[in-house]
């Protein structure tokens, strides 16, 4: 997968005669081309929250009227600093794009030679004759029937494979060499069948966690020993691990989402979803927000520091069966028992498009290159570019063991064109070209790490451990300045101004009669409401009946009465 950016760099250097591609990029004879190349590089490599600004940064040089004539900032020094920062950022993005030339590995692909050929008709048997021996070795089936169905989990570099049979068989395999590393039978010496619902590796492949019948248990991959029992996580149905935060999350039958810090062992937070039992949970790798699929068709997104869901989407009619997030974090795919597979844009929380599945979908996964795998019934189908636009036919199709099995779980092996399928008769590994990212980063996911490197990686990752509060929908906001909206700011300012002033002292009108009730009564003396009117009326009528009607007359009425009684010269005015 050589990217457009790298190609852009190539083409620009070809156009001009100079050899130094970097110089060409900046002083290219074709300014439009160089700008587009830069824009592409920024699009891919520059920090996301600055993307809007960064475009301005690029145009900065091209448009002399923007910053030089129209003064944007009051502070000249700050402006210069910002400009310098922006230039550096753009330069870094361009350099990163240029460094793509150094990526020697090219991703896998299938190319049809004529229109009649269909990639999804390609069978694994045919495919194995087309690829090298090492790749064809990755096509194999493991027949494991007594503890089935099986769940599949790969560790982050894609080196190790964790197979968990529902009733208590666990196997850790080296996926590259296809050797069994450790096998466990968690069945209490065969007396009792276990119920393993979900599994995940922790920060590296040396430890893994299983969601068993009562609690979560953590095991050592090498010795197979039970290391911890997480008693807080009761009856878990799904677990997931956030490697950068060292957080193990689980959700269970009671519908509580719980986070435990695996470096300290402390429970970080516990959220009540109020949506009943939940068994569908995957995190978004871009922002580490946990996505939960519920029985009423709702998908909720959670952060450990917020007790309410960050987002709630009604995704399906009927329960959500599975969901998957793409690596870039922009898209989510959900499958419901309403036979729909929907692609969501997580930025807008809207459906991009949806697919109808004839058979009930049991599991979904999205590969590093954005290929969608849909496991349903006996088949697994692979959809290329299915997220970006609606596809009519799948890219690849695989019928596990020629039918007769129920697919349980599908997972792409990272950085390889390999897919692991767990099903009711064991485990199958197949090759799907073009699903793995072609280049790995040794400092991030090193599948060939030796002991020393692994140890160092562990320490580094502990030092860089992120705090749970950092999990939010937009992770690029960290370290930025949050500005209130204008009206909020005004309100705050007014509040601050009023706080500075001395509070007004109420005047003491009646000395010694300072009871609160009296005060209130004084205050409300002039207020006439319905009750008071009625009371007055009643009192008046009572008084009149007793012949003391004068007491309740208003001054005007009294005057009038007096005038009438006196019968003076002005009495004619009082009629």
């Amino acid at each position, binding site marked *: 997968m050589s990217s457009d950016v790298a190609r852009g760099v190539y083409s620009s250097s070809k156009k001009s005669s100079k050899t130094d591609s970097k110089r060409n990029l900046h002083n290219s004879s074709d300014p439009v081309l160089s700008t587009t190349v830069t824009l592409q590089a920024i699009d891919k490599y520059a920090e996301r929250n600055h993307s809007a600004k960064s475009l301005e940064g690029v145009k900065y040089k091209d448009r002399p009227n923007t910053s030089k004539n129209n003064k944007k900032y009051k502070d000249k020094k700050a402006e210069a600093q910002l400009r310098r920062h922006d230039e550096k950022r753009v330069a870094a993005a361009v350099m990163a794009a240029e460094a793509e030339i150094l990526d020697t590995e090219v991703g896998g692909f299938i190319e049809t030679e004529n229109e009649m050929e269909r990639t999804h008709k390609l069978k694994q048997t045919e495919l194995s004759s087309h*690829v090298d021996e090492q790749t064809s070795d990755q096509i194999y089936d493991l027949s494991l029937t007594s503890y089935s169905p099986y769940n599949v989990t790969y560790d982050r570099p894609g080196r190790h494979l964790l197979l968990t049979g529902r009733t208590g068989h666990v196997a850790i395999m080296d996926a590259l060499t296809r050797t069994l590393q450790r096998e466990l039978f968690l069945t209490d010496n065969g007396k009792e069948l276990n119920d393993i619902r979900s599994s995940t590796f922790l920060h590296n492949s040396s430890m893994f966690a299983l969601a068993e019948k009562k609690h979560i248990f953590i095991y050592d991959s090498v010795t197979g020993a039970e290391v911890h029992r997480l008693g807080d996580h009761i009856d878990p149905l799904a677990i997931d691990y956030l490697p950068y935060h060292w957080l193990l999350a689980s959700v269970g039958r009671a519908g509580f989402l719980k986070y435990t810090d695996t470096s300290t062992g402390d429970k970080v937070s516990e959220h009540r979803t109020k949506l009943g039992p939940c068994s569908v949970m995957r995190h978004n790798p871009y922002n580490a927000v946990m996505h939960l699929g519920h029985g009423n068709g709702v998908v909720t997104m959670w952060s450990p520091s917020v007790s309410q869901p960050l987002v709630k989407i009604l995704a399906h009619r009927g329960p959500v069966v599975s969901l998957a997030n793409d*690596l870039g974090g922009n898209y989510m795919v959900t499958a419901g028992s309403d036979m729909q597979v929907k692609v969501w844009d997580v930025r807008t929380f809207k459906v991009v498009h949806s697919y109808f599945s004839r058979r009930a979908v049991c599991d979904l996964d999205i590969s590093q290159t954005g290929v969608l795998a849909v496991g349903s019934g006996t088949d697994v189908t692979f959809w290329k570019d299915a997220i970006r636009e609606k596809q009519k036919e799948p890219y690849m199709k695989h019928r596990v063991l020629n039918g007769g099995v129920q697919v349980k779980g599908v997972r792409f092996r990272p950085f390889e064109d390999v897919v692991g399928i767990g099903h009711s008769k064991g485990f199958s590994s197949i*090759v799907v*070209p073009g699903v793995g990212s072609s280049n790995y*980063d040794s400092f*991030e996911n090193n599948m060939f790490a030796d002991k020393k490197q692994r140890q160092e990686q562990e320490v580094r990752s502990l*030092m*860089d451990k992120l705090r749970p509060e950092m999990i939010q929908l937009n992770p690029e906001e960290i*370290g930025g300045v949050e500005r209130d909206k204008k009206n909020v700011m005004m309100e705050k300012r007014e509040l601050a101004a009023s706080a500075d002033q001395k509070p007004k002292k109420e005047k003491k009108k009646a000395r010694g009669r300072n009871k609160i009730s009296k005060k209130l009564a004084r205050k409300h003396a002039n207020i006439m409401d319905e009750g008071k009117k009625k009371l007055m009326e009643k009192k008046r009528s009572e008084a009149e009946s007793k012949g003391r009607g004068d007491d309740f007359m208003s001054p005007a009425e009294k005057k009038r009465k007096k005038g009438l009684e006196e019968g003076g010269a002005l009495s004619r005015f009082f009629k």
Partner: protein
Amino acid sequence: MKIKALSRSVEGNTRSNSGDIKKLSRNLDPKHKPLERAREYTRAVTSAKLERMFAKPFVAALEGHVDSVACSAASRGHLCPFVTGGVDGEIRVWDLASRRTVWNNKTSHTGAVNGVCISNDGKSFFSCSTDKTIKQWGLGVKMAGGRKEKRKRKEKGVLDSDSDSDGDSDSDSEVKKSSTSSDSSKNPAPLNSWLFSDTFKSMDHHWNEEQFTTASDEAVQVWSHHRSNPIQTYEPFNGTDSCNVVRWNPSERSLLAHTSSDRGIGLHDTRASSSLRKTVLRMRSNCLEWNPMEPMNFVVGNEDHNCYSFDMRKLSQPTMVHKGHVGAVLSIGWSSTGREFVTGSYDRTIRIFNYRSGTSRDSYYAKRMQRVFCVNYTADAKFIVSGSDDTNLRIWKARSNEKLGQQLVREERATNYRNTLVKKFEHMPEVRNIVKSRNMPKFVKKQTAMAQIQHASAKRKEGNIIKHSKKGSVAWKGERAKAIVKEYE
């Protein structure tokens, strides 16, 4: 159908034997590096903490003087020599690398040594004193600068005082004679001495020529090495008070700046007979130093606890007010990079300022350090030397957390990365609080708090005056404009 699938072998991605370097693969795609900003922020916090953890600025205290160290001078062209003058009239030459005195004269002057400066050729240095004399001394001393340095000095004709094993015999016998003995019983004689009618406050050597200048009670004098009388004398421009400090401009050959007791800062052109211009501040300036890299700018340390940066072309207003000290600023030393300067103060602390920032980057103090009379950067801008009232000379690291000695390339890269991260997130309260936190002595803390209250009060008062005056009759006065009382052209 064309098919290609990814296939990675263990052999292709790992080293073949343990002697090889480990094979690494990079993928800069941000998709594979999620939560980058949060991770960077976390690293920035850690880096800031590390920075404070390793902040051990104090290197050494050099004993020797028996009275306060009044003045000091580092050579402009050579790394090693460092000269200090004491209040008791003693002069010492130090080898900072080996932390010892290589030359001293207890009776150099009968009064306090108020100024020392090293000549451009590095062969001699001058001292001036309240005893109304200027003396020139030979500076042929052996430093622990290693063979290379020695050879260089030899090529330049500087003598080693100790008789070397390779038996070098050089021409300048007078210098040799004057500088051979380092024991105090036989005090070395000066090469030259000038007697004057007035006490001296400060002196500075010309950057290129064989001239030096002195500030005395009455005037500023310019001297030649070869004349017995001053070649120029300048009366104060406007006023009759005495001059405190005088400094040559590093690039303009005939430009002098001085401060005087009438709170003034003045400029002189030695080609003309009278001074160029003068500006008067609210309080007296105790020290003045030109920026060595931007020679139109200079900084003065003031009695009002602040330092003021000036552009010599515009003395009507300082370009920056540097605040932080709670005592009068007594001396300033520029880093050779021209980006930072260090100040020594009466409040017993040293502060390091960025030349464009109003607050100090760092502040140093020692339990037994008294009022700091002289501060200097070493020529490599890595160390600061301070001389104080407690008779000690102290060496400090310019960057308190910097590791001394040579760093490995990877180490250096990691340090740079950490520093950049801290800089990137310095505006965040968490990082800022760590970076800016300093344990200061109780006295300084209290004074700082008091100064803040006073400042707020003054500001409030100013606001009230404006509020209750006729509209437009009284205006806010900027902090920089406040410093200047009057300017004479």
